[in-house]
């Protein structure tokens, strides 16, 4: 149930995001989800890709600072209340969500969550019969 997300350190200068995508593109890496967190000076690019280990090697070779981060992914109907429910389950157990982002797939949303305790979060969501996606499910989208 653990998904390996790529995290890439980027300076805030134009063209760097493009370069990341280009080097990954050259090796036919597919991207399922992407999000950028940034300050005025630097940013962190977060990516769910088809082959995280390979993508990490490619980026390293191209002089990017890159790491794999464990996240989890949930599939829920797109209505806001379902997203809220997921967050509520976690906060009730004092599991903090460091960040989250989502994208829709038909009538459903796919939610990515980075939690303070990944194992506990998975167990809690399972107990509430929330649909968790496996890495293999996600990379296929």
């Amino acid at each position, binding site marked *: 149930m653990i998904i390996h*997300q790529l*995290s890439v*350190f*980027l*300076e805030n200068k134009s063209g*760097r995001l493009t370069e990341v995508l280009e080097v990954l593109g050259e090796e036919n890496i597919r991207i399922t989800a992407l999000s950028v*967190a*940034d*300050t005025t*000076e*630097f940013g*962190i690019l*977060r990516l769910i890709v088809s082959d995280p280990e390979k993508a990490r090697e490619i980026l390293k070779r191209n*002089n*990017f*600072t*890159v*790491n794999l*981060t464990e996240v989890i992914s949930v599939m829920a109907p797109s209505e806001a209340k379902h997203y809220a429910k997921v967050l509520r389950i976690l906060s009730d157990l004092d599991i903090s969500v*460091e960040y989250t982002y989502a994208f829709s797939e038909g009538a459903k949303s796919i939610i990515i969550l*980075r939690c303070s305790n990944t194992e506990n979060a998975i167990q809690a969501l399972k107990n509430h019969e929330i649909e968790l996606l496996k890495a293999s499910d996600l990379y296929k989208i």
Partner: protein
Amino acid sequence: MEIWNRHFECMDRDGIRHVQSERLRETVERVYFNVPYYRNRMQEAGLGPESFHSIDDLSKLPFTTKQDLRDNYPFGLFAVPMSEIVRVHASSGTTGKPTVVGYTRSDIATWSEVMARTLTCAGANRNDFIQIAYGYGLFTGGLGLHYGGEKIGASVIPISGGNTSRQIQLMHDFGSTVLACTPSYALYLAEAIAESGIKRDDLKLRVGVFGAEPWTENMRREIEDKLRIKAIDIYGLSEVIGPGVASECLVQEGLHINEDHFYPEIIDPETLQVLPSGSRGELVFTTITKEGLPLIRYRTRDLTRLTYDKCRCGRTLVRMEKCLGRSDDMLIIRGVNLFPSQVESVLLEMSEIKPHYLLIVDRINNLDTLELKVEVDEAFFQDKISQLEELRQKLQNNLENSLGLGIKVTLVEPKVIERSEGKSKRVIDKRKY
């Protein structure tokens, strides 16, 4: 510990003063009769060769600066006919013309001798493989080490600078035991070796002789830990002869100056007065054996101090403290003196970042600004903005605490900062005066 030339390197103070006085008299005579520039300046001061009896008379003479060399570009200060010159080197000037130096056959022999002392000082001998990763060519680093290496009978690998993967391959395949390069390139190589997958135990490297740029004690520890070698500081400048002017021994408590060839003085750079023994000030050299380009009281711009005690290694040659930096490199930021090496020292105390940095000085609305670009270590990088912000803040605080200056810190991607194979560029000063 081996000593290459016990006679001169272990001579008592009276003996060495006698040698220096004798050689100074010869030098003064040589420049008076062969270099119009020096003759004019001596005549202006009312001095002739007969005014010099001992080394103490040296302070009667005026100083020579890099500008004097430029003004007499290219060969104006040479003291022999060009037919006697067998080699020319030049250092690229950041401003204006290069500085040109010439060697007679006997100067090359002197250079080989002082480099043989340097390498012996670092514990090298005929059984060593010396990998010379200093640049060859007009820069004196490569050939200086080369001649010294051959003189002690070591096996010299003249690989020159650059091509890091080949450096590592030959270091492994040939079993290099001594590495000669700039300290910043040594650090770069250490990283590259770690990434190459070659095990440290499969390398025979034992000692490094590093120079051509100022480096701190922290940087030495970093190199020694990462490469698992003894890192020896060597000092020289092409105007005086190149590398070989001074070198640390394995005791690593200061650099022994080859004072039977290069006579050192310490002056106050403002008043130009010679300072009492033990004071810190600008290092000045008079070459007392050189034929091609003898220099009288040449101002190095390097700040250091001298110790005349006998070293634990047995040498009696005067020692200079490791140079923090050239007075040329010293930045004055909002009235505060700052050497780039001090910034480096703070960086090396933090494992989360790499000691690769660039300082950018500017003046905005009449106020000096200082920005430090520095690389984040990959092992530290997680994907939290807050963690990077904290790191940036911590570094900014550490810099402020130890330097007394506010510096804006910017985190940059790896390898954004150019790795140098020669001298590295660490400062960009955009101020217009």
